[in-house]
């Protein structure tokens, strides 16, 4: 097993407001292997975006604070990087695509210039050289070079997202974090963009973390999947393991609440209740109030991660005693 290209260990991030701590991320750990696409699935408040922003060290401090943990990239702990190291890292080694493509582009700069900008920051190229590279990137994302001098408002949503993808891949980063990259797009456009992202990923051999609440999108693109709830990963494994052998009651509940296009259903099966307020997390397992399989012992302690099968880990009290332990 190769060394992972990115390794997050026990990351804990809180937002401190007045005197309350919003516990957005609580001791999350996962690895990203070379060339792999890891999906992080979760609903609003699960902590996915906070995790992504932490890797990019973009959490505003105050009120956010990384309380503990390490993030290893190519063997070094990012959390120890100074300002200059971070500037070198962002865009060149690790890139991020943010949630809303409509607001991620600068409306007063030409689109080609915005791609060229990231190139000029990280590579020693002249203006002209950078522009040429930028044109190549535009064509790679399916936009003709004659649109280099157009402004963002002249593009549709799908095309704006392609430009953003071009910017993020311009310097061929090792890791790309994509936070709900297609959520704001129409479904036929989403299909186009996902197809294109898959191709680019293969060509560049980029490792990707794809954040989404859409289990369908995740299934299209990811090799491994982590299910997040209340600031931690409750289940992680390969795509097949999660989709065919889900163990955690939340994971099962998520799949169960989806309407299925291929099956006739009369009524959906939702998970009752709501995700807990991250400012007031209950002690013990965060899923307890909503869990159909809960027992009293769940209230006492947050369950630790156990390995059910090779690479398939779960945080659930019922996971003890099953599967192999490494």
């Amino acid at each position, binding site marked *: 097993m190769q060394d992972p290209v990115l390794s997050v260990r026990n990351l804990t991030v809180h937002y401190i407001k007045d005197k309350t701590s919003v516990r957005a991320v609580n001791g999350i750990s996962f690895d990203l292997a070379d060339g792999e696409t890891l999906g992080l699935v979760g609903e609003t408040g699960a902590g996915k975006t906070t995790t992504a922003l932490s890797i990019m060290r973009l959490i505003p401090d105050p009120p956010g604070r990384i309380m503990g943990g390490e993030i290893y990239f190519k063997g070094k702990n990012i959390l120890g990087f100074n300002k200059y190291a971070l500037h070198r890292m962002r865009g060149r080694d690790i890139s991020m695509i943010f949630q809303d493509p409509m607001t991620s582009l600068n409306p007063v700069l030409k689109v080609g210039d915005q791609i060229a900008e990231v190139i000029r920051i990280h590579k020693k190229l002249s203006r002209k050289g950078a522009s040429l590279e930028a044109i190549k990137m535009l064509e790679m994302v399916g936009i003709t070079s004659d649109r280099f001098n157009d402004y963002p408002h002249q593009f549709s949503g799908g095309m704006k997202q392609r430009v953003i993808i071009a910017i993020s891949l311009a310097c061929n980063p090792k890791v790309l974090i994509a936070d709900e990259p297609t959520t704001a797009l129409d479904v036929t456009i989403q299909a186009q963009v996902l197809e294109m992202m898959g191709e680019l990923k293969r060509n560049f051999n980029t490792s990707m973390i794809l954040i989404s609440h859409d289990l369908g999108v995740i299934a299209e693109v990811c090799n491994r999947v982590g299910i997040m709830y209340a600031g931690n990963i409750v289940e992680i494994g390969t795509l097949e393991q999660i989709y065919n052998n889900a163990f955690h009651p939340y994971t099962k509940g998520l799949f169960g609440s989806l309407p299925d296009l291929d099956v006739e259903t009369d009524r959906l099966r939702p998970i*009752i*209740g*709501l995700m807990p307020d991250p400012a007031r997390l*209950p002690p013990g397992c965060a899923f307890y109030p909503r869990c159909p399989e809960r027992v009293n012992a769940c209230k006492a302690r947050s369950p630790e991660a156990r390995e059910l099968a090779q690479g398939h880990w779960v945080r659930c009290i019922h996971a003890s005693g099953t599967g192999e332990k490494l």
Partner: protein
Amino acid sequence: MKRNMAQIDIAGLADFDDGESQVPVRKIGLARETWKNLKKNRLALVGLGLIILITFAVVFADFIAPYGIDDQDLLARFQSPSKEHLFGTDNFGRDIFSRVLYGGRVSLAIGLFSAVFSMFVGILLGSIAGFYAGRFDSVIMRFIDVMMAIPSMLLAISIVAALGPGITNVVIAVGIGMIPGYARIVRASIFSVKEQEYVEAARSIGANDLRIIARHILPNCLAPIIVNMTMSVARSILEAASLSFIGLGVQPPSPEWGAMLSAARPYIRDYWHVITFPGLAIMAIIFGLNLLGDGLRDALDPRLKR
């Protein structure tokens, strides 16, 4: 049978122990929420304190002022501040402290009334322009543009010159100059709030235009109006004082602060106290209002992370 399943959903939610208390949520209006935020801003509290102090002193001038506004004591002219005369005496031997207190009534009243007057007219014009847009908007806003093109002091002077001096006319003159400010703020607010879905929702439940403006749109435009209110009170006090200073506002012997400044002009070089204390009074109330206004702007802004 199906109904029972929904009840499971509902029961799941209603009995759902999500750690929140079962105590009913208290109704926290805009006022309480704003106060909560304002309390954390020390400067704003200083401003508020100043305003309260001055207003209090001015309202209860009858009890606090040791002398009347016109108690002349020609033997005690131009006395420096002392125990008997906190702010000293003026050219007629009148106690400046008492005159400042009583004068405050005039100044603050003018400030308040002109602000309220311009607020009502401004909100009315801005609402019509913003809500009905189209031709109404064009006509009203061109009119507002013309008003804004004229320097407000000049406008005030011309109005007072036309109507004659006196408190009411000063209120009108100063108030008119501030109408454009309110109108534009309200119009801009309405344009953005108008597009919100809850306004459309109000229409879909049968609300008429008046209800939509009064209940749905204006309450959501309150923040900039409130902030502008404090600023316009400050501005009108200053403008009224300026008018009186050039002799066009409140006439002597009324102890309006601006008039007191004007009357003290010949004596600046020899008797500093005659002009200084009314000036300080003006400065204090303006300062307090500005601090409060700034604080309110921050306190009312929902996006500001506190």
